[in-house]
């Protein structure tokens, strides 16, 4: 077992080393799009805050005395043919190959190459939204999972005995996924080569390689459920969906009712804190508080220590990113400590039992911060697929399309942002109350414990509103 892990580490290190060796090209220090949302105006901030309070008090008032979402039943909707699964997997592999090829062979201008937009917009923002609406679609399209399954199928057919996978270490849990998301966020928000297509393509290859090694060591399902950062992340969002893709069958279920079934292991709390914390940092780092108060100070210190301007900037942003994750983790921890005072349960136990209530918050943050990116930069895919390499080709006849910024105005974006936060807040409260009824035998204890969760949710939602209003504001 330790030999297997060593092997995995060695492969990962080699791939990472390969990636680093190609990196030193200095890239632009700005985002892909060069556009930011306007901060939400004061009246909308006030309205959002009011909505949060009213929703919270209503939630307290209409408390239902028995769990509603914990034990729901699913209704089969349709059969899923095996061919569909094969088709989706093949599409996923083809898309992956196309993006990597575009990144490596195409123009190295981030905005004119297919790779950065597909990775940062369609993959990273589009899939969470799609998962929350349609269920865990990524499981079918995941290129590395499809490759691994195809390999296993071929090996099984050929009669070559596939060695039984090792047991996935319970202590490792979802920590690899938490680290994976943190690493991705670091590349997106901190790393100076974030928009560099060839770097992104190499990182994507490295990621796929690590997943293939992991799946071969620990089995496809165990690895995908725990350690494949993106699979785990999109799966979490899919738990909110009214659709559930079972084995060969599509089920319908009440929205949110998948979340209580989350299997919590080591690292799950960390993963959700990373997901919320990194999005928070993305918002915070656009604000003046960050860019004109904190950055210059930290930057000067690192430059004094002898780092180059660029390294100093990356170090500063790394600290900010980690601090944001730590802040979010601390906030959740505080709520859990408060709940513990109700009695009967330890902090670790409670942190795990309530962690699924953070999934809607995480989704709300994603929508609030990246909705406009999806709405605007998502359109770029129309012309990028026709000219994926940025060399002037026009494969589908859409290369001359442009981004229409008129599709949605700033005011509508504000409404979407605030609505996402308020709905996420209500969903989080609903899940928390439902779980409290299971954890605590007496309704009164459940209610008392929920004052703390209410405080946590209000804190997260207020933080979200603050980030939207402070995004790039003085």
């Amino acid at each position: 077992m330790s030999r297997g892990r060593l092997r995995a580490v060695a492969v990962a290190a080699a791939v990472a080393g390969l990636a680093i060796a190609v990196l030193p090209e200095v890239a632009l220090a700005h985002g892909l799009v060069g556009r930011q949302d306007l901060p939400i105006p004061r009246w909308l901030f006030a309205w959002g805050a009011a909505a949060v309070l009213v929703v919270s008090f209503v939630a307290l008032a209409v408390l239902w005395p028995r769990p509603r979402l914990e034990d729901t039943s699913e209704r089969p909707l349709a059969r899923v043919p095996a061919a569909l699964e094969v088709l989706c997997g093949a599409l996923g592999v083809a898309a992956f190959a196309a993006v990597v090829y575009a990144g490596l062979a195409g123009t190295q201008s981030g905005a004119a190459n297919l790779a950065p937009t597909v990775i940062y917009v369609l993959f990273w923002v589009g899939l969470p939204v799609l998962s929350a609406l349609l269920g865990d679609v990524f499981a079918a399209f995941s290129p590395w999972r499809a490759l691994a399954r195809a390999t296993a199928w071929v090996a099984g057919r050929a009669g070559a005995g596939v060695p039984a996978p090792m047991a996935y270490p319970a202590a490792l849990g979802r920590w690899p996924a938490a680290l994976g998301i943190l690493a991705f966020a670091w590349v997106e928000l901190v790393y100076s080569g974030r928009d560099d297509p060839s770097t992104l393509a190499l990182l994507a290859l490295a990621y796929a390689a690590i997943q293939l090694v992991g799946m071969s060591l620990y089995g496809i399902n165990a690895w995908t459920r725990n350690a494949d950062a993106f699979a785990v992340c999109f799966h979490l969002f899919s738990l909110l969906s009214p659709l559930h893709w079972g084995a060969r069958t599509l089920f319908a279920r009440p929205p949110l009712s998948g979340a209580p079934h989350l299997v919590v292991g080591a690292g799950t709390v960390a993963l959700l804190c990373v997901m919320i914390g990194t999005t928070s940092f993305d918002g915070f780092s656009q604000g003046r508080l960050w860019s004109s108060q904190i950055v210059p100070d930290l930057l000067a210190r690192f430059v004094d220590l002898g780092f180059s301007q660029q390294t100093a900037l990356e170090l500063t942003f790394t600290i900010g990113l980690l601090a944001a994750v730590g802040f979010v983790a601390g906030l959740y921890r505080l709520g859990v400590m408060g709940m513990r005072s109700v009695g009967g349960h330890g902090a670790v136990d409670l942190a795990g039992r309530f962690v699924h209530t953070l999934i809607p918050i995480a989704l709300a943050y994603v929508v609030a911060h990246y909705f406009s990116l999806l709405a605007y930069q998502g359109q770029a895919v129309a012309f990028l697929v026709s000219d994926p390499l940025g060399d002037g080709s026009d494969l589908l006849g859409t290369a001359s399309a442009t981004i229409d910024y008129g599709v949605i105005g700033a005011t509508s974006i504000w409404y979407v942002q605030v609505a996402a936060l308020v709905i996420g807040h209500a969903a989080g409260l609903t899940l928390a109350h439902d779980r409290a009824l299971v954890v605590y035998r007496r309704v009164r204890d459940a209610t008392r414990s929920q004052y703390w969760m209410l405080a946590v949710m209000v804190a997260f939602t207020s933080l979200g509103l603050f980030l939207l209003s402070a995004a790039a504001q003085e």
Partner: protein
Amino acid sequence: MASPPDDETRSLTGTQRALLVLAALGVLLVAFVVIRGGEDQPHRSASPAPATQAPATSEPAPVPTPDHEAQPEPESPPVERTIRVVGGQPSAGARTLTFVKGERVAFEVVSDVADEIHVHGYDLRKDVAPGATARYAFKATIEGRFEIELENAGTLIATLEVAPS
């Protein structure tokens, strides 16, 4: 399954719950109208760059309609709308140029380096030679914050902010 909870505390009927939710929605609606009406001014941030014209628009009463006609048309670009690039960097730092949708955006860039100036979002590009001036004048049609960059150097020289009218 949890053991049967002791229902000593609350026993709301379904109708009562529904009424509560409805009442809450009503409160929200009223709050929205009140707050919306109370501060109907489009958001203008007090950025370092002087806003086009920010007279204390003396509106008689909070009218919950957008004040299209209340906006006076700006006549000429103010003098401050010049971005000077010295040594490849904006001499006064990257300022924010604030406009309201529908207004005319006008500014100029004086640069001591050769580069391409790119106004993102509006996607306007102009080459500038050392010592030369690039003039921009266009209508603010897209809302949002947009980077104005020395494209090749990747240096942010100003931010264009267009607020909803």
